């Protein structure tokens, strides 16, 4: 079982590489297009459905600075696939190089426990949790912007900040009443 290693390859000059993992492959494409609009840095976006990644691409794949798990809250499969993929990452990734992005959190068909479960997962791994709105282009742009901030820190473009330090500030925390029933 080959795991993805954050430090196995040399970093690219003036480039940042991000891997978007989404089991539905729905939001990935538009998010990727918004991400490559960035001009100050060359952003390399790679898309994947789930782990393990195909071995034949191992050589051509650059060093991944940030792994983003996109979880669609309306499907349970999305969450399970993301959870299952976690074990294919080296532990070095969880020190600030992993981020969770959640879509469709406002949909009424989402059971509250799923969001809580995602929160618990993100909090236990000390990773940031972002909420994105994928239906409108404005939402996609906003999500891309926020992701870029984290990506820039993960790739070393922010002076005096390492991804570990940033993750301490942005990590997901559990609200103290998460075990109590919510309003609906």
């Amino acid at each position, binding site marked *: 079982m080959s795991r993805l290693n954050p*430090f196995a390859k040399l*970093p690219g*000059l*003036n480039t940042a590489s991000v891997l978007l993992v989404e089991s539905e*492959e729905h939001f990935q*494409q538009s998010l*990727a*297009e918004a991400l*490559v*609009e960035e*001009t100050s840095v*060359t952003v*390399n*976006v*790679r*898309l*994947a*459905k*789930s*782990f*393990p*990644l*195909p*071995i034949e*691409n191992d050589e051509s*794949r650059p060093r991944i600075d940030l792994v983003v798990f996109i979880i669609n809250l309306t499907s349970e499969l999305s969450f399970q696939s993301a959870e299952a993929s976690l074990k294919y990452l080296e532990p*070095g990734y969880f020190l600030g190089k992993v981020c969770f992005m959640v879509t469709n959190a406002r949909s009424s068909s989402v059971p509250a426990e799923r969001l809580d479960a995602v929160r618990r997962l993100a909090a236990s791994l000390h990773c940031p949790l972002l909420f994105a709105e994928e239906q409108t282009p404005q939402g996609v742009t906003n999500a891309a912007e926020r992701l870029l901030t984290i990506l820039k820190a993960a*790739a*070393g*473009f*922010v*002076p*005096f*900040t*390492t*991804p*570990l*330090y940033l993750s*301490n500030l942005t990590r997901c925390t559990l609200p103290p009443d998460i075990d109590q029933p919510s309003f609906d």
Partner: protein
Amino acid sequence: MDSSGEDINDMVKKDDAPKGPSGQKETSTADMLRIKQQMSNQCFEMEVHLNAGKNRRSCSTSEAERDYSDHISELERVKTLRFNQTLALHRMQMWHAMEEKIKTNDPEADALRAVNQRCMALCCRIKQIQQETRLLQDEITELQKKRLEMKRLTHEKMKEMEDLMSRKEHPDTEKYKAALEKGQTNLEKYKKMSIMAQNVLRGLLLACKINWLDDPKLRHVAMTLEEFPITD
């Protein structure tokens, strides 16, 4: 190989940055500095990772959490300290640069000097106004003190007056009560005597059948007999 169905690993990339005539990407000095900083950041990260396993000790998760937050706050403290010191350094450097600039005789230095003069004038004015404010404030405090004093005095006087008024009734009534009673008893006695005399006179008039209507003096006396009630 693939145990979990189709694993795609696609790539999305846009065109490279505009190339110069020699086909190389044009990088300015600032870009190079940025790239250098990026690389040093990456190296730092890798170093940290390499040294991560060295100071290992076993402890519980809660202890680790506590230590963790302690370390974070220490880190924050040091970072803010460093930031403040850098700011102070920048300030000093700026002032030095401004000094140097003013000593030369460029048009920019003239503009700088003009701004300086204006700042100084404004500062003087501010000082002046602050002094005036202070004086006015003192005056206001004095007036307030006087008003408070006045209020206090008024209050005291009112209390004294009330005291006096409540006290005055007693001594007077004490003195004259005895005399008043004596007078009352005298009055009663004389009243009884006059009533008795009047009754006797009435009896005399009736018994002797005196004609009191013709004599004006007698009539006047007989009329006054009716004033007092006839007692038994």
